[in-house]
């Protein structure tokens, strides 16, 4: 394993190079911000006709991670679909792949700001989720004694001239990078993230290998 291991509220977690989070105790894989169907949604709204391959690409990478880790549970941490209608409009081939991935494991769709409604694809739909000492929700909230796992911000950080999606980790929470192919990023130096994360927060870069750096270099 080439992930970055850390403890959050006494639980052992691992930030994987793909941008997924692994919880060994529960054999649980968590990904955030898949934004499936983004190109379809943009076209529907009269926007640009983007290359319509991102859903397949995202699902292929998710399938790869599921094959590696063989999770018993998968938590998709919100903004799983670019909007509720995008979930309905999935290409049949993509829908089949997703169904195959879901088969034989517990699959939980946490609602996001893009996809508040339940989705008719099987699995459980939840606003948020509490497991042992951890809370899974889409957007970071108040520190409440649980370890909090969220997405939403698509954090990125740049070192040696290269910008990559990253996990942000402090003593009470972790923010996941976006897993979807067509997702941008918010610099971890932005004021929003600066306000949320504690003073000794780490950024863990995704890529071929994970790379941990202080979120606020030189601070």
């Amino acid at each position, binding site marked *: 394993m080439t992930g970055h291991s850390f403890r959050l509220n006494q639980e052992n977690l691992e930030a994987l190079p793909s941008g997924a989070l692994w919880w060994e105790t529960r054999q649980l894989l968590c990904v955030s911000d898949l934004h499936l169907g983004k190109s379809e949604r943009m076209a529907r709204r*009269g926007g640009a006709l*983007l290359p319509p*391959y991102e859903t397949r*690409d995202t699902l292929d990478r998710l399938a790869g991670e599921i094959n590696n880790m063989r999770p018993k549970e998968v938590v998709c941490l919100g903004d799983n679909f670019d909007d509720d209608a995008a979930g309905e409009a999935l290409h049949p081939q993509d829908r089949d792949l997703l169904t195959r991935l879901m088969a034989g494991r517990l699959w939980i769709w946490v609602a996001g700001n893009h996809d508040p409604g339940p989705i008719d694809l099987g699995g459980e739909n939840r606003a948020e989720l509490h497991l042992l000492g951890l809370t899974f929700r889409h957007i970071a909230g108040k520190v409440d004694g649980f370890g909090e796992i969220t997405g939403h911000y698509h954090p990125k950080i740049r070192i*040696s001239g290269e910008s990559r999606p990253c996990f942000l980790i402090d003593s009470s929470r972790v923010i996941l990078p*976006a897993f979807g192919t067509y997702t941008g990023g918010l610099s971890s130096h932005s004021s929003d993230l600066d306000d949320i994360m504690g003073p000794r927060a780490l950024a863990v870069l995704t890529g071929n290998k994970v790379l941990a750096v202080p979120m606020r270099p*030189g601070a």
Partner: protein
Amino acid sequence: MAQLPQKFQDWFEKRGWSPHPHQLALLERSKDQSTLLIAPTGGGKTLSGFLPSLIELSNDPKAGLHTLYISPLKALAADIRRNLATPVEELALPIRVEDRTGDTRQSQRQRQRTDPPHILLTTPESLALLLSYEDSPHIFNGLRRIIVDEIHALHESKRGDQLMLCLSRLATLAPDSTRIGLSATIEDPAAMADFLSPGNTHILNADPGPDPDISILETAERPPWTGMTGAHSAKAVMEKISQAKTTLVFINTRAQAELYFQALWAENTEDLPIGLHHGSLAREVRERVEGAMVAGQLRAIVCTGSLDLGIDWGNVDLVIQVGAPKNVKRLVQRIGRSNHRYNAPSRAILVPANRFELIECRCALEAVQERDLDGEPRGDGPLDVLCQHILLTACAGPFDDSSLFNEIRRAGPYQSLTRQDFDDCLQFCATGGYALQAYDRWQRLLLNADGKWQLRDPRAAKRLRMNIGTIVDVETLAVRLRGRFGTPLGEVEENFAASLSPGDTFLIGGEVVRYEGLRDMVVEVSRSPTKEPKIAVFSGTKLAMSTKLSHRVQRFLSDPTQWKSLPSYSQAWLTMQAKISRLPQIDRLLTETFTRGDRAFLCIYGFAGRNAHQTLGLILTKRMEEAGLEPIGFVTNDYAILIWGLQPVKNVAPLLDPQGLREGLETWLSSNALMKRTFRSAATIAGLIEKNLPGQRKSGRQATFSSDILYDTLRKYDPNHLMLRITRIEAMRGLVDFDRIEDMLTRSQGRIDHVLAPHLTPLAAPLLFEMGKVPVKGRAQERLMAEEARQMMAEAGLT
């Protein structure tokens, strides 16, 4: 020769003018369909263009749009409006003249569509916008004359291609309209005529005026071996400024302009008022400088290409070019900015920034004196611009594909467009043109019952109009002083902003500022008391030397009899090179290998320009890595490329084998940042990526994603897509500049000279100090990142 009508004759006489011969010649040809007037700056070009219109309108001032004037600059349109006011008022002509640019009020723009003025002054983008309205036939059907000003500037960019497509559209709407193109001195008038209106453009050459008085600055201190700033010349240049009335100091890049401005200030013992003007400064700042110049309050402006065109400042009597001009035509046009009066010689001084540039300046000076201008030949009209044109045509109403195709082929840049390419563009506009047909329900264009193409959703027109234009700037962020109403200082490239850490200092607008942080997409800074910025420059593209000028330089170097015009220290330098190695020759390719310390060096004198050398460096080092030569890094300038590694190159020729290089290019291109940048620009123009969407910026960056992702996705799933084809074509002649590598190989035809030099050679030496060394990528990059991460963790006590 035509005569001015009595009324106009009297007006000329009253002002103490007599009409220039070319003004009368143009009048004589006023019935011709298309005329190209080539005249030097200050030749009353613009008035020549308008005379036929003013005379016609003075006889028959019927309502409606009569003349459309298009210039590349908004400021120029506004300036011409003020200038035309004089004859219109003094001759009491019943003519309405208005401008229409991005700065025009919404209410006025609305009125111009229902009740257009006689003469409308606009820009290519504003014209494209007007043509995208459903009422465009009504606006333009009575149009008589079209004047394209500064056509030489438009000709060099996609703005010109877009404009020519629009003129083709206008020819359909107003078949009787005539065209006049107004150009500064150019190298190939026939090509320009073919661009303006193929087959029927008559060329009028005005008297080119007296030769310019041009010299190379002598400085007490010799120019340094390398570097681009020219800082050694500041004292001497300051003296020239103080002797002249008003001086324009041209610098090649924005960053260098900042540095040079600082260097000048340090020598400005008389406290002369000097301004700074470049494209990265906030508009407020630039307008203030321009205003001060118009009011005659400045003795000099340090500027970049931002002042290449524009309003006449009659009081400029000296132009100084710091750094090699890189391109003779542009130099001539810059020189023309001084003494903006016809028949008075312009005065200009060239300031080489280093020893190589001394030679380049000498060659450029001779080229100017011989009126031997350069210019890269123009390829066919780009397809991304065509895609935008098709979408905007759809905004104006349903169209027939064959009629549109024929109309487009009447535009100069698109006269050899194939039906296949047109259809590919049309498919791209309609469905995205993907191998996976995903958008059947959401097509952008549909064939209607009449067999015409129309927008599926008419509301899309609004979004498309917001994306008009072919200028795709690198993404920039505003720089402001920290505080609630922080003063805007200018902008920097997003990549540069991302490289800053709080506490870093850099130069902008002539002052050193401290980076505080990024808030709401604004770079917040505070004034820094330090004199020396920690990070000297923000990035900017460097122009490559033109092919023709580099050929001149090669011929100059290979012929010692020409060296007499050089200072003795330069002659000694070249003589030493001939002794230790060889001199580069135009029909051969000189390469040298030597060792220095524990590094093996390879120097190739390609004379193909900076961009092509950069490409060659990346391909060659990759090939060397495969061959086990363990390259470590390389550096380039306009003349040569220097590569160093652990193993000496024994046999150079196989590395430079054309077929191998072409194959290397293929694999290398796939993941290249230049390709991604080229893709972004093409995809934005073609409407695949939207710019300027209201509210987009405010919604935070996590909503938008980098176009690099689209590029990677297309390459993976749809490698033959139109956008990738366009990107390749663009990159070949743009930043990748592989065409010039091909030219280099064709010229030398395998005649490669390999000199095993005993040590570092005189010509290669300056390259060692050149900025911008490129490490060989791949595993090295991963290692660098890991090392930096380790250091950061250690600093933070987190090992």
